[in-house]
């Protein structure tokens, strides 16, 4: 179980094949604790910056400060926001609160999915987004250059390289895929 959790955290199991793992990760369970520990270990090894302290509180505060565009009185709220922010806070109805909460939940879940799918750095996320939004011009080489981080050498490419461009020692000392 722990191995599978670790594999999922390392993106070695497809999300669709891991529904039972998701189910096992009930809040406050041992699995959920391991899950967050594995991500923390991964982040530390990759040198990814952790979220700022009080991330959730800060995010909620920022969301509170955002104008909640709801018709029909959205225009009215925007008008008053600039001069009476405190009054705006008082006027928030339970409906707008629940929208803010679900938005925050989407943010957190989205962040987790991006962490597992795309992995290392924020800039990589930007690259991935640029790819999905079909804007090749946005992915300049320089942005990719900034995003590069330490990675293991993929053995499938190393084997291909050694098969077609061998060094004097690679005939006798094999790459990882041939490990004994």
């Amino acid at each position: 179980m722990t191995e599978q959790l670790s594999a999922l955290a390392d993106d070695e199991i497809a999300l669709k094949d891991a529904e039972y793992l998701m189910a096992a990760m009930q809040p406050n369970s041992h699995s959920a604790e391991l899950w967050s520990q594995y991500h923390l270990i991964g982040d530390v090894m990759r040198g990814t910056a952790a979220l700022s302290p009080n991330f959730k509180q800060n995010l909620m505060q920022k969301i509170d400060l955002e104008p909640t565009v709801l018709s029909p009185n959205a225009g009215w709220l925007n008008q008053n926001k600039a001069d009476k922010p405190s009054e705006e806070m008082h006027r928030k109805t339970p409906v707008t609160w629940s929208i803010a909460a679900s938005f925050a939940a989407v943010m957190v879940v989205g962040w987790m999915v991006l962490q597992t799918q795309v992995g290392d750095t924020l800039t990589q996320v930007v690259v991935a987004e640029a790819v999905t939004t079909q804007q090749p011009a946005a992915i300049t080489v320089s942005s990719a250059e900034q995003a590069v981080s330490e990675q293991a050498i993929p053995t499938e490419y190393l084997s291909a390289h050694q098969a077609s461009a061998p060094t004097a020692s690679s005939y006798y000392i094999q790459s990882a895929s041939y490990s004994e």
Partner: protein
Amino acid sequence: MKHFVLACLLAGAMQCAQAANSEEDWQVLQKAALAARALSYQGIFVCQSGQKTKSVQIKHYFDGQNEFGHNVVLDGTPREVLSQGGDLVIYNQRNEKVVIEKRRGQNMFPAILPTNLDLVKTSYSVRSGDTERVAGREAQILFLEPKDNLRYSYRFWIDKEYGLILKSVMFNGNNQMMDSIAFNQLNLFNTVDLDWFKPRIDHKKNYVMEDEVPTKADTNISPHWTLKELPAGYRKVDQMIREVHGKPFPVTHVIFSDGLASVSLFVEPLLNGIKPRVGHSTVGNTSFYSNVAGYLQITVLGEVPEVTVAKIANAVVFVK
């Protein structure tokens, strides 16, 4: 004034002498490249790369036209390499099976230098050092040093009598040893029979041919990408379309060389749902760099400094 002219003449003469020396040293290397192919020799050499060390028994025979080689790895899992000219057959034991692999051979020790050194001369300079004993034989040390930071340096111990490379060590820019190969026993022979030119068959094992990895030469210029300036001294030496394990589509594989070191470039389209790989690392003597150019995944690796693989990766330009 007189002194100045004298000093100039002296400096000029010294430079001349140096150039002549280096020309002699290049000739020693040229002879080493030929000796490794045109002599018949047998012995044992030790190959070390990173933490791994292997002893290899070698027998190489030249009949005046063709080269025959039989190399047996003596440590760890049995492995044999039979070569005839540039064609290799490798008998690679994996568990209860022996997998027979076919390869194109090049730069097998001690024939690590190309017979044409022109490309090497553009990127490296040579100078001679002391003499030392290797494998019980007198050897001349030659330093092959890069003219820039785009490649590693080499040190060769060359048999003063046979002209063969007895020992070769590769160093990185910080003078750390990256890998080494050295004879600890060597002698010439001149029997003409080829009885030894066969693998040691283990009848208890099952012999299977390797699943052929289809590759085909690629002479087409891709409409989707082009190469801008390559790092100095590197030339494209081969281009093919190949299958890479775990990839649904064939990948374009381009090989670059500076005459000694080789770098592989892999170009493939980014696939929907597969995360783009962006990263770099150096493990042992191999540097790796991957990034994204437009809709393409670029992967570069080779036994060169990281700056070289990065330069080659960034030389790929996506064409819309």
